[in-house]
């Protein structure tokens, strides 16, 4: 058809134009996505550290000075080994310690690395030599698999995804059910609710840190208002027993809840922030699904005097479910990749209570410079994400088939 109808087109021929239009995009995507992806796969089978020489020289950490005995014997005592371990460096059994020039500089040599030590009022571990690039087969993977912490980062992430996505689903879908009616200013209200999801996670994380502060945060103040009001009402009405006092206690303890810096509450705080940001997304997609349901289905059900639950169960839900699944797919993928918000709001802490896999990958890759190992972790994340999305897509196809 096009360009083949006997008429000789002027200017570029269709084929040339087509190439000119498509090739730049494909080249860009291959160079910036596929090539790095393969490189990353390759690196995951190597022991490699991308640490820069300038970073090598900066101080890693300090330990106490009582290790002279180690130097005399040349071997590493359990205490010094522990100090290294506390700083994330595992010394092998064969590590040795030696000295250079009147013990102003110690060298702790492990089979892979050399750690340089400066002696001041403390031992200042000033850096380590860059380990050479070395193929290690699947060792990076097996190490990650056997590290208990790796699994705990995955579990933390899974908890977060589960809590955040279900909260967003319930709130977003519920809100859409309420919004799916005609009222004055509907367009305006919907748009205003959508603003949070367009904001940068950095800005959101920064600000929620302020709002969730346990001393002057707005959040605690607002949630304490309800029990405080109940306290006043029950006091005025002379409720029996200590109901009123109980409300007063609740109000004052609500005012002092510690959110982001308490291990048990930190992940939950992230869920609150993420839900504030992303439940509008669920709402938007649910609303689109709801408003696309033909009215006559409800009218027919009305004639049959069907209950509200029946209408919801047999009309609303099946017809919206494909869109809901798309929304859930998008959110699950995004929540699984969560990095910005964690970095800003908790930096993985306290301890490693909110250390998601992406956060841990950043730490391994750009703070510890365990580049090869990080690439292996990146591939583990990729596989989980592909597996998750294919499960969703399977259900999505099923839901689409059902609703037709």
């Amino acid at each position: 058809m096009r360009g083949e109808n006997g008429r000789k087109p002027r200017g570029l021929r269709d084929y040339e134009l087509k190439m000119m239009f498509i090739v730049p995009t494909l080249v860009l995507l291959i160079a910036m996505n596929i090539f790095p992806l393969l490189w990353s796969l390759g690196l995951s089978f190597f022991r490699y550290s991308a640490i820069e020489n300038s970073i090598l020289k900066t101080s890693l950490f300090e330990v106490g000075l009582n290790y002279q005995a180690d130097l005399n014997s040349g071997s590493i005592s359990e205490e010094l080994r522990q100090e290294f371990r506390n700083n994330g460096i595992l010394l092998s059994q064969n590590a040795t310690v030696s000295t250079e020039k009147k013990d102003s500089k110690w060298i702790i040599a492990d089979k892979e690395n050399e750690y340089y030590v400066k002696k001041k009022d403390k031992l200042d571990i000033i850096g380590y030599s860059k380990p050479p690039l070395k193929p290690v087969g699947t060792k990076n993977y097996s190490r990650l698999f056997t590290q208990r912490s790796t699994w705990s980062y995955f579990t933390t992430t899974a908890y977060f995804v589960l809590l955040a996505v279900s909260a967003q689903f319930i709130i977003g879908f519920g809100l859409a059910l309420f919004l799916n009616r005609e009222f004055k200013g509907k367009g305006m209200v919907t748009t205003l609710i959508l603003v949070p999801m367009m904001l940068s996670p950095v800005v959101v994380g920064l600000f929620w840190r302020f709002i969730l502060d346990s001393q002057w945060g707005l959040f605690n103040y607002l949630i304490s208002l309800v029990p405080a009001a109940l306290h006043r009402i029950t006091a005025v009405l002379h409720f029996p027993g200590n109901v009123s006092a109980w409300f007063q206690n609740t109000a004052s303890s609500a005012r002092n809840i510690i959110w982001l810096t308490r291990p048990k509450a930190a992940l939950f705080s992230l869920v609150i922030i993420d839900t504030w940001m992303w439940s509008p997304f669920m709402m938007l997609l649910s609303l689109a699904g709801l408003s696309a349901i033909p009215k006559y289905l409800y009218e027919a059900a009305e004639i049959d005097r069907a209950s509200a639950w029946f209408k919801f169960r047999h009309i609303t839900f099946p017809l919206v479910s494909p869109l809901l699944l798309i929304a859930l797919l998008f959110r699950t993928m995004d929540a699984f990749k969560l990095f910005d918000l964690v970095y800003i709001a908790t930096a993985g802490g306290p301890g490693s209570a909110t250390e998601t896999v992406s956060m841990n990958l950043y730490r391994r890759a750009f703070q510890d410079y365990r580049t090869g190992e990080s690439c292996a972790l990146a591939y583990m994340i990729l596989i989980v994400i592909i597996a998750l999305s294919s499960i969703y897509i399977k259900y999505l196809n099923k839901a689409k088939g059902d609703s037709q």
Partner: protein
Amino acid sequence: MSRRSRKGTFHGIALVVIGISLIFYLIPIYWIIATSLKRWPDIFVMPPKFFFKPTLDSYVGLMTVRTMTPEGAKIVGASAYPRQLLNSVIIGFVSTALAVSLGTMSAYAFSRFQVKGKNDLMFFILSTRMLPPVVVIIPLFLMYRALHLIDTHFGLILLYTTFNVSFATWLMKGFIDEIPKEYEEAALVDGYSRFKAFVKIVLPQAITGIAATAVFCLITAWNEFAFALIMTTRNARTAPPALASRMGSSGVEWGQIAAGTFIFLLPVAVFTFIMRKHLLRGVTFGAIKK
């Protein structure tokens, strides 16, 4: 209670619920604006102050560097923040222009021409966007270091163009599919070249779509944090990592952080409002058109 009045009651309840949720979504944003306009002691009072005498001190503090003199604080120059905002603007606009141009061109080709393995190629383009950035960030960092692209505007522009081009292709394909082919075919009969028909006939028709796509790309580039954090240090640093590091330095100047945050999110809020009709399409890669 009759059915009708029960419905009326439910309608009333629904409006109350909508009102409460509106407050829930907007209070944090109001709080940012309020904090940015408060005097320093007012920021940390309990119970919080909802009404106060506004001042622009935080904005002045954010944008300038001051020194203490016997006569009080004196402004000695601009802080790094205006420059970082400018970086965000430059990188955002240039990468958006590139991504939308490339995306519109490839979308046109996919929409109008027969392309071998079209569906596979489109899926490939989509999958690059779905790829978690953490998977490619390490090799990209090594690549950028080798090519001396770390901390350059060009480096970030290239990255953001790549992220957005897949999105732009998908969104624009949806918009171009909706333009009837007959217009161009008529132009071709009139002796237009295919390229001229694209420029003179298709582009003007697709202008709404292009604008919507551009806004989404711009917001993505504007908000991006992880790559900006790793790939920039000083020269090309954009506002998001700069705001994040403000947190660590100089105590916690919440007033200034609020001011910086508000300046940063204002354009996004305005654009969201302008683009409200296209939001659904934008956030679903054009999967849902309405």
